């Protein structure tokens, strides 16, 4: 079961190599990988919308989509048809070329990052030796597209959304990158494949999340990841109740669908990368194939993101920045130091003790320093 995808690709390549020259086989191999991702990306997006709607529905004591197909499974297709047939409205004062380019430009990085995700054993499209860096770098360019969309719309809400988005993405990029550092330190490699392999396997719990620094990094990375995807509680760039729809206010039809697609693919890839970095990627109990483990872990993280959405209100811009710069950033910096100490101290008890103590102290100190931003308890009088 495990190598089913790898083997089928091999079989396909064998088939082609029988009658095609060698160099085309390489091309075919590339195209198969690209094709798989091109199918997987939009497909994931489609069913994540379905998943999210179902899940939120259940959280809110509703049923969710259930009219199109059984369990509403054809709903995404119906939505797609709707989006395609909708009128494409470009505002009068818009910068037409940039307005058109922006949603296209945002889908590209979202699709590109799929290429370094190890979906299973030997199932990485490109095993770059800078895999994680590639992921972070490419996803950083989404800022640019959001900016393009916001600016080209010539709408004040879009502009506000764009500015918020940039401030947010640039801020959260920092703790996100810094929380990856301990993991890279531990694995000694930037390649996603190496990262997964260094997390051992099911036996012995070698996942990084089971170490104090790993756990801290997991939380900080995941939170920054949620912020990078513009998801609740960090969805201020498109905060519906405040700035209508933020940077994609002026988009309709398929262009709007592309923004959405990028967002949902980001949700998937960020969850996937979190699973790879901290939850052992495709490593798992041998009962299930490796790719199944990867998807289980990823979807568990996706579930948490949607669960956030079903529960939490959103933060304000300044609080969001405060969280990134005043809390996550110092914590991740200390965490790098703690991870360094971890590999420096030989004795297990000592290193666990030091790590927990240091991180706890930092957490407490940061809470104390930020206490003005923390909620206060209120008392109420009762008049007769």
């Amino acid at each position, binding site marked *: 079961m495990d190598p089913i995808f790898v083997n089928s690709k091999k079989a396909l390549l064998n088939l082609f190599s029988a009658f095609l020259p060698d160099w085309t086989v390489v091309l075919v191999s590339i195209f198969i990988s690209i094709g798989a991702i091109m199918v997987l990306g939009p497909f994931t997006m489609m069913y994540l919308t379905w998943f999210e709607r179902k899940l939120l529905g*259940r959280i809110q004591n509703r049923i969710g989509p259930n009219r199109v197909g059984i369990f509403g499974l054809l709903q995404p297709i119906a939505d797609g048809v709707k989006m395609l047939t909708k009128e494409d409205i470009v505002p009068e004062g818009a910068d037409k070329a940039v307005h058109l380019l922006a949603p296209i430009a945002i889908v590209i990085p979202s699709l590109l990052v799929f290429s370094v995700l190890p979906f299973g054993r030997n199932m990485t499209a490109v095993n770059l030796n800078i895999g994680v860096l590639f992921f972070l770098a490419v996803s950083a360019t989404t800022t640019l597209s959001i900016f393009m969309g916001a600016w080209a719309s010539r709408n004040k809400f879009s502009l506000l959304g764009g500015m918020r988005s940039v401030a947010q993405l640039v801020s959260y990029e920092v703790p996100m990158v810094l929380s990856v550092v301990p993991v890279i330190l531990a694995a000694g490699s930037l390649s996603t494949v190496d990262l997964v392999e260094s997390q051992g396997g099911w036996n012995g719990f070698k996942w990084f999340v089971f170490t104090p620094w790993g756990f801290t990094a997991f939380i900080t990375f995941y939170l920054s990841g949620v912020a990078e995807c513009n998801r609740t509680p960090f969805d201020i760039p498109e905060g519906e109740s405040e700035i209508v729809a933020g940077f994609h206010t002026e988009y309709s039809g398929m262009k709007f669908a592309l923004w959405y697609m990028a967002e949902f693919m980001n949700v998937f890839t960020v969850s996937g990368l979190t699973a790879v970095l901290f939850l052992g990627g495709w490593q798992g109990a041998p009962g299930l194939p490796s790719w199944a483990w990867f998807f289980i872990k990823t979807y568990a993280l996706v579930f948490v993101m949607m669960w956030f959405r079903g529960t*939490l209100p959103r933060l304000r811009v300044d609080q969001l920045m405060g969280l990134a710069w005043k809390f996550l950033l110092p914590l991740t910096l200390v965490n790098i130091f703690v991870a360094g100490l971890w590999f420096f101290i030989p004795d297990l008890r000592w290193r666990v003790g030091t790590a927990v103590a240091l991180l706890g102290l930092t957490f407490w100190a940061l809470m104390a320093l930020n206490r003005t931003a923390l909620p206060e308890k209120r008392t109420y009088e009762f008049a007769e």
Partner: protein
Amino acid sequence: MLGVLRGMGITLKNFLASYVLPRRPDSLETGGIVTVQYPEERLPEKENFRNFPFLVFDGTVDNIRCVSCDICAKECPPKCIYIVRDTDSEGKPLKRPKVFDIDFTVCMNCGICEEACPFDAIFMDHEFEIGGPERQKSLVYHRDDLLKSTAHFQKIRPTDFAAIEERRKKDAEKKAAAQATVQAAAQPKPQTPPSPQP
């Protein structure tokens, strides 16, 4: 932190409960899915529910209770009722409406026509699915669209029907008795001849 986690717990509880707990109407008490899948499932109709008005007739369609007294049209707060009294072939006014139009685009379902009607002729219906292909003409209901039998009224609002019928019966008896006494008083006297027309 703890507050957020507690909130997450509550939403998770609701999420899981939606798979376990029963649906409407029990779910209103227990939690769980409260959706009513409208065209297929319907909530039980409340007897007192009021929507657009209708005119009642006793037995056959000719027997309209409405005497076209115009009270409802006058009392109607948004003035959505329009009545024209029927006349016989000689142009004498009859106690029934020729035109009785209600503009449902204007009607606000307040039920004041029903309260004001001294002849128990107009009542509020339970029918609410009156959508039409356009927004003006199909929502102006004419006399014949509005007519519904007393049986329909009995079906949708049995309690009110019983009370009203009892009152009507009493009124009728009283009227009959009064008429009887009037007749009894009138009988011994000799009939005065109709005064000659000038």
